[in-house]
């Protein structure tokens, strides 16, 4: 069975600085998807960035980028030029390309942005 681990329950970053959130996963599959979702307080989860395992190039979306290390089964999220609106829970998720396509989530990292 696949598992996702986020070892940082909470992180803080100064406004305009860069922060990296860690995620590791375990799977025996070679093809899958990885996602980072943001969950602001009392608001719904929204997709931040996604990575397809067969793509070697790291995904980038504006200030958000990932460091995908397939052999190490690591998928970290880098947020550049942090903004107050980035404060939220961040969840790493794994999705197989087979079966029912359910997401397997980590336990989340709470990001605080300091003014």
């Amino acid at each position, binding site marked *: 069975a696949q598992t996702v681990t986020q070892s940082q329950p909470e992180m803080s970053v100064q406004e305009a600085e860069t922060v990296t959130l860690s995620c590791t996963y375990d799977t025996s599959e070679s093809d899958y*998807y990885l996602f980072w979702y943001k969950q602001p307080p009392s*608001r719904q*989860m929204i*997709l931040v960035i996604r990575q397809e395992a067969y793509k070697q190039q790291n995904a980038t979306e504006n200030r958000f980028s990932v460091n995908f290390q397939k052999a190490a089964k690591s998928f970290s999220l880098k947020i550049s030029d942090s903004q107050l609106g980035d404060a939220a829970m961040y969840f790493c998720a794994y*999705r197989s390309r087979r079966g*029912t*396509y*359910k997401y*397997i989530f980590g336990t*989340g990292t709470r990001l605080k942005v300091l003014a």
Partner: protein
Amino acid sequence: GAGVSQSPRYKVAKRGQDVALRCDPISGHVSLFWYQQALGQGPEFLTYFQNEAQLDKSGLPSDRFFAERPEGSVSTLKIQRTQQEDSAVYLCASSPNDEQFFGPGTRLTVL
């Protein structure tokens, strides 16, 4: 366009009561998922529909939990004889492909 909506947003139930949680997915999305998110935890999979067919219910924690999507659109998650351990946020997500779009969730509190 409209996103995934869920109702009610908040539900308080006395232990032993039955509850029904509704999910309106994005129009045209074939896949629909239910997740349970306990306080301070990540969401955990409950069940999955493709159109009206429930293809995976392996995450339902007990036979008190039942989900349906009779016409392949709106879905209802029903919990019978609620227990305190059922207190959580219940998230619904719909998907046209690889990405899932989440609703705001229903926060269930069982007293």
